[in-house]
Each structure stands twice: as structure tokens, then as C-alpha cells.
């Protein structure tokens, strides 16, 4: 089974050195600028991935290497026999821990530089069961061979985006961009492909910020575009604000718990379990089943005011609807 998925990748894509396959139409989405990515690639020739990141962008060290990030995978009840596809794997924050515990992992990302970095990590960890595919996530085909696990971690909101993104030049910066189609439609199409690539008993692990994250109501900037209130306002208003401030429409759509559930049903998933996640899905301190509600919530944000607000909203009022992030486990 592992072989057949790999064979399909081999048949459909050309190899770029060991472990990486590509369609030849690379894109770019990264927290690093293209220049920093080049420096990182150069650094990897003389040092290991940890030292390279510490040299180029030490602020990203935990984002890439922290073991805290992968704790949500425990919800998947992995047996060690699974074939997994990590959509938008980037530097492998989940790919590496997943590969240590599963039979085979296919990491897919459109940014070749990220995959080259991830390949270095794979070698350092001596992992033989990971292959990487450089491909735009919207163009990933439906494979004949199906996976047991699909990971969509912090990816869904970026699916409607078009073209290259250097985050430092994108977040809160004016950049004229044009899009075709409805963001939600693109997200559903992507999730349908993910669903079609899963076995009947397969599971999707999806993590995304909550549209109605309580911080958004207090004027904290949207984590994707850097404008206040855009995620909670009606979409057409967010669109207007974004066009005025950033010269581009607002396409990084987030969802509430109920809307995300509906979206996943719409994409072909029959069973959806939702989890309220604090303070963020990247570094979760608490993951609470949405259906069971909040019990003994301890504030997780660092700022004092935030802690007071969190205590009122979640410890006393138990308003799980305003949790910062959502993790969804979906089955066909």
C-alpha cells in the first residue's frame, strides 16, 4: 500500500534529488523572504537544520522544532501502521513526529525551499518513511491509493490565496492581488480532494483559528492579514475594509465551530468531532471536546488583561464558542 502511493507519486512527478518529487510548477509561501530562504539553503550545506535556523531566523526555532506543536496528534489514536498525507507540511512541524509514529508519510507543499529544509531534517532524524511532493495544494490529484490520515494544519485559510507569498511582505502590507471565485468554494474543493484521498476509515486532522476568537472582539489584529475585526465582521464588510487598507479582497476565511462542521460535511465527511483549543492550535495548552463543554479552564494567554478576560469568558461563563482555535477530527 505504501509502495503504491509512492509509485503513483513517482509516476506522476519528476524527482528532485532524493525524497522530493515535483510537478515543476513551484509556488512560494513562507515566513521567510526568498533571500532568507536562499541563506538558509546555503547554511544547510555546512550545518544542521537547528543551527541553520538559529543562524538565519532564531525567532522561528520553536515554531519549527518545538515538540509542543505535535501534541494534538494524540487525538488520532495512531497505531503505527498508518499511511499519512500532510498537506502544507512546510518545515515538518508535524511531518517529523508523524513519521516517527506511522508507517509512511507523504508531505506536500508548494514551496521547494521549505521541502529542501525538511529533507535535511528527515535525514538528521534518520527517517526512511517520508517522501515529499512539491505541488500546489489546489492541484493535488486524487490518488488511486488512499491514506489513513490526512493532516491540514493551519492550511485551510490559505487555500483561497493565489500567487507567491512572503509573509513579511504580505501581512498588513499593501499588495494588489486579484482572485477568481469564492474563497469558501475553493476551500470546499480542497477538502473534497482531501476526503477523496482518504480510505473509508480514514481520519482528517484539521487545525484552524476560530473566526470568533475572543481576542478579535478586543481589536487584536487578524493573524493572517493584520487588520482588526475582519474575521468577525460580515464577509462583504471585511472585503471592503481589506480592499481599502491592503488593496486586495479578504480571502483568508475562517469559520466558527458550527460553520466548520457544515463545511466538512459539505466536503464529504460524515462524522466531525470538534475541539476548542487554547491559546492556539500551534502550541496548545488545552484541547477540550467542544461537545462536552468547558469545565475547569485555566487561562492560557500570557498578558494579564487577556488572562482576566479569558477567566471571565471561559472559566466562569464557559463560552466555548469564542475559543481561540479549533481542531477538527473528521471521518468519512
Amino acid at each position: 500500500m505504501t509502495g503504491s502511493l509512492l509509485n503513483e507519486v513517482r509516476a506522476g512527478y519528476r524527482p528532485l534529488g532524493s525524497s522530493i518529487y515535483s510537478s515543476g510548477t513551484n509556488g512560494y509561501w513562507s515566513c521567510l523572504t526568498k533571500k532568507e530562504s536562499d541563506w538558509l539553503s546555503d547554511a544547510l550545506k555546512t550545518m544542521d537544520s537547528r543551527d541553520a535556523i538559529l543562524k538565519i531566523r532564531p525567532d522561528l526555532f520553536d515554531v519549527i522544532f518545538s515538540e509542543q506543536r505535535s501534541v494534538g496528534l494524540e487525538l488520532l489514536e495512531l497505531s503505527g501502521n498508518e499511511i499519512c498525507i500532510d498537506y502544507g507540511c512546510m518545515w515538518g512541524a508535524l511531518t517529523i513526529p508523524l513519521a516517527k509514529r506511522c508507517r509512511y508519510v507523504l508531505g506536500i507543499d508548494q514551496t521547494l525551499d521549505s521541502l529542501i529544509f525538511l529533507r535535511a531534517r528527515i535525514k538528521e532524524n534518520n527517517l526512511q518513511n517520508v517522501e515529499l511532493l512539491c505541488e500546489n495544494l489546489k492541484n493535488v490529484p486524487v490518488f488511486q491509493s488512499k491514506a489513513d490520515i490526512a493532516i491540514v494544519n493551519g492550511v485551510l485559510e490559505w487555500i483561497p490565496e493565489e500567487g507567491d507569498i512572503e509573509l513579511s511582505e504580505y501581512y498588513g502590507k499593501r499588495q494588489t492581488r486579484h482572485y477568481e471565485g469564492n474563497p469558501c468554494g475553493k476551500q470546499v474543493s480542497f477538502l473534497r480532494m482531501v476526503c477523496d484521498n482518504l480510505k473509508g476509515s480514514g481520519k482528517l486532522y484539521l487545525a484552524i483559528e476560530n473566526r470568533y476568537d475572543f481576542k478579535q472582539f478586543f481589536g487584536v489584529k487578524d493573524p493572517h492579514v493584520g487588520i482588526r475585526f475582519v474575521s468577525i465582521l460580515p464577509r462583504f464588510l471585511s472585503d471592503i475594509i481589506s480592499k481599502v487598507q491592503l488593496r486586495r479582497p479578504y480571502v483568508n476565511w475562517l469559520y466558527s465551530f458550527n460553520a466548520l462542521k457544515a463545511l466538512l460535511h459539505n466536503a464529504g465527511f460524515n462524522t466531525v468531532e470538534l475541539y476548542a483549543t487554547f491559546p492556539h492550535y500551534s502550541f496548545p495548552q488545552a484541547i477540550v471536546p467542544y461537545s462536552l463543554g468547558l469545565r475547569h479552564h485555566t487561562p492560557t494567554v500570557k498578558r494579564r488583561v487577556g488572562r482576566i478576560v479569558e477567566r471571565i469568558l471561559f472559566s466562569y461563563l464557559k463560552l466555548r464558542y469564542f475559543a481561540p482555535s479549533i481542531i477538527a477530527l473528521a471521518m468519512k
Partner: protein
Amino acid sequence: MKELIRNHFGGNDIAVFLERDGECVKSVLKVATTKEGIETIRREKQGWDWYLSRSNQQLQIVNRYLYEPEKCYAKIELKYIDGAKGKYWRGVRKNYGILQSTVEHYLKVWQNEDVENCSMHGDLSVDNIIIRNGQVVIVDWEHFNKNVGQWGFDALYLIFETLWFDAKKHGLPRQAELLAVANLIKTLNRDNNLSSLQLEQPLSWTKKFILENRKLWGKEVESSFTKFPVVSFTDEQALYIDKKLAELLSGRELCIGRVRPIETELFTASS
């Protein structure tokens, strides 16, 4: 359904989940994916095995244990223990019944241990004691170490950690609290197992032991001193408390006044 309640908190490299069946908590799951965390899980398992073999309690606690250092992964699933427990921040007097029962329990469990090379719980706090059907159950064996410490360390640590919350409130503990501590130490030394230094300077000795053996607690003691209130006593406080305790222990009958029934100290527990 699983609920994450703690993730790499306070320098501790493990994630803790509750396994829920609706409202009811079935088990506690501890998971590690780092070298230090995996070692913590191994210690927890070793600690439970050691403890259950000595405590005469017919408990089946460890449901599942997976130790795979080659995959950077370990987990232990522990049965949820229903019971009641105290609140450490209420100090010695309001936890006196729990402390006394635990010292008695310590004497039973740690009897016949080598005084110089004694096994150690490493985090014996009121928070890690559950009263189940009137019996003490010590939980959270993440810092267990076999044959490393001096006999009595855990019990002294428990007493002084609780006393620290009295000292925090009043600057220095009051006479009634010191009397209660002296009485607990006297009970602990029933079989004359404490060393002369432990008796003469119990707090300074406990504090010194932690500082000289930091490696037993890994990076937790470095990253979060507040997890070790005993170390937070100033030298002046420790000197005063030791002096007072030495006076109280030096002979005359200890009268600690009215002791509240243990039931008044207990709250709904979670292990």
C-alpha cells in the same frame, strides 16, 4: 474523548490528557515525545510499580504503558482515582489531618528502606495526595528515583512545602503552625530514622538537599523555582524556623491545640 489539560508546562516535557466518557473521567494519559519527557514517563511507571508493591493497596493503576525511545515516544495511561484532596495553599494547620495521615503512610511505605540510599517520590505535595476510602494514595510519580535520597526527604518536603504557604501569608510561620510541624516531625522520627542534621535543621537540610541534587529534577527545578516552594524560603526564614523547631523538638510534650477533623480539609479530588 480526549481532553488535553497540560502541555509541556513548567519545564515538564509531558502532555497530560483526560480520557472522558461523557461527564465521567475514565483515565489520565501522559504522553512524551522528548528525551526528558520519555524519561519522566519511565520514572512514573517505575514509581507506581515501587509504590503499589509496598503500599498494600489493591489498586490497578497503570492501564497501559508504552515506552519507545527509538521513536521518541512514551505514554502511560493511569486509572483515574476517585477521592478527595486538600489544598496546599491553605497551610499546615488546615491540612494537618492530611499531613499526619501522609506521614503515617510514609512510615509504612518507606519502612525498611535504606536510610542513606532511599527511594524518593520527589514531588510529595498535598496536591499529590488523594484520600480514597479514608486511605492515603500518593499520585504523580514523575520525579521518582530509586535509591538516591536520604530517608525522610519526601515527608519533610511535604511538611515544609505546606508551611511555606503559611510563611508567605505572615512573613514567618506562627507558633501554632510551628507546633504542628514539630509534631509531624516527631511522628516521622518515631523509629529514629532521621539523621541528627535532619532533626537539628530540618528546613535548611531539605532546602540544601534540593539545591545540591538539582539533577534529580531535571530542567524543571531550573525553569520553575516556584514549583519548589521549599527552596524559596530565605536563609533568615530557614534559620528562624529551624531554631524554633529545634526548641520545640527538644523535649517537652507538644500540644498543638484543637485539631479539625480531616473531612473538613478535603475537597473533591482529581488525580
